């Protein structure tokens, strides 16, 4: 079966996934690091990175926050 990647992805769960609660709690810290070095952010917060790979809404929030902080500063 070569046609199952979406189903495989759906069924895959990562033991490191911290869930939405912790991800939302730390998203500002993660985003600030990811804005300059995405790989460093993933390495420093692997559980949060695992969650962002699996959770569309939290990943979307990260994208929005990155767009905000890389735009005009306060």
């Amino acid at each position, binding site marked *: 079966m070569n046609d199952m990647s979406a189903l495989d992805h759906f069924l895959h769960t990562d033991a490191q996934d911290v869930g939405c609660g912790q991800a939302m709690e730390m998203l500002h810290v993660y985003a600030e690091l990811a804005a300059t070095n995405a790989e460093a952010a993933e390495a420093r917060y692997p559980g949060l990175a695992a969650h962002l790979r699996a959770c569309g809404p939290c990943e979307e*929030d990260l994208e929005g926050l990155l767009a905000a902080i890389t735009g005009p500063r306060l």
Partner: protein
Amino acid sequence: MPADPTTLDDTPDTSCRLDPESAQWVRTLCGSGAEREAAVVRLHELLLRVARGEVRRRSGLLGADGPELDDLAHQAAADALLAITSKIGQFRGESRFSTWAYKFVIFEVSSKIGRHFWRRPQVPLDAEEWERLPDRFGLDPAREAEWRELITALRRAVETELTERQRQVFVEIVLKGVPLDALVARLGSNRNAIYKTMFDARRKLRTALAAHGYPYDNTSEQR
């Protein structure tokens, strides 16, 4: 600009050293009088700018027009301002104040988009829910012989292995395509709870499929 309903009785836990801009925000927002009022107005302006940018960025998913988008942005900015000023005691200086503050308005936009989902005209369902599953997972109808048995096993596992709540969440999100934040709004729940319900359901389904000989192994994926 909404009236400022907050009173600050928290002292920010800024055990981390603050950059000068963040320190200025904390000092003025925790202050009083005209200086604080000016800081609140300035913060609201910035939150509104971020909210407008975010609803524009997500407008393709919204099915809303300009005035409706702007109304949503105003609501998000106002609610974020309320959250920020009431929670400023929780700001620990782990990031710039602006990044911490923007997070709140991004979350408010997400939440409001989730609620907005139910205000859109719902498309009548034209097929049995389970008949849409192959399409949801991008399975090629021409190769049905390869995946039909697996989908049947998956359906059986959903019906026999999941709790009623897990099944409900699976049906709404996977079969009906309801966005997670929209389901959160309808069930009066929170994102973490719905995600955890779905996470546990996915793990159960993978285990059930593995038990029936499908190539899914959960042994290293327990949470």
